[in-house]
């Protein structure tokens, strides 16, 4: 059987890759995709802890469903913002949208 640590290391790898994408990508849609990767890694962690805990409850699955709802609303609002930004600037590169940067 598979030890708990394997799932946790796998989720940590996916989370770190997503973190790299958020920090390093230029395109806003690519940044949103990396955030989705990070949220998926969190869900893998939650489900792994649920499966390996001796407690018989279903709290881990409930948390995962809440994370699904949060990530769906996050991506909907984020992509609406991307479309709005694109209309105004004809540009969705995070480096060129620097009105709030000093």
């Amino acid at each position, binding site marked *: 059987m598979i030890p*708990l640590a394997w799932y946790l290391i796998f989720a940590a790898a996916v989370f770190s890759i997503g973190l790299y994408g958020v920090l390093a990508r230029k395109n806003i849609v690519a940044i949103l995709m990396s955030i*989705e990767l990070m949220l998926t890694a969190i869900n893998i962690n939650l489900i792994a802890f649920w499966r390996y805990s001796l407690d018989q409850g279903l709290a881990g699955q409930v948390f995962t469903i809440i994370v699904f709802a949060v990530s769906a609303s996050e991506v909907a609002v984020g992509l609406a913002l991307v*479309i709005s930004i694109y209309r105004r600037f004809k540009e969705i590169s995070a480096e060129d949208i620097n009105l709030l940067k000093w």
Partner: protein
Amino acid sequence: MNFSILIFLFVAVLTTFAALVVVTNKNLVSAAMWLIVALFGAALTFVLLEATYIAVVQVVVYIGAIAVLIVFTIMLTRRSAEKEPSGATKQWPIAAVLSLALFSGLTYFYLTVPGTDRLAPVLDKELNMVSALGQLLVSPSGYVLPFELASVLLLAALIGSIVVAWRK
């Protein structure tokens, strides 16, 4: 080596590779396709962890809704992406060092902290997990408050995204 370990290794390697392609590919449409592969790998991981309902929801919500929404946005904003290929910023080595440090730190922690080498307990075969989950989500002694909060959040996101994307 038994069969589930082989499946786990295959799924983990596939998902990690797909995630790497998502964050490095300059072509956004193929990055989105690889994102679907990575999300499907996560759904397979949920099946391995015997959370089948979560796996189905992962496929329906992430691949059926979120990935399609992302592909739509890529198509709508295509002109900007074609003008300059979407690579990494100049600071990408710092980002790579930070994420590698996070990954190695977490791995070290997981391998040294006690209790992470345990194996999964046997699940209660009598338990109907989907109906138990549904009752837990709406029972006042369970998680009805987070559940209602999530629905209010979804409604707010729905209205908010319509308002933000409205063409004036």
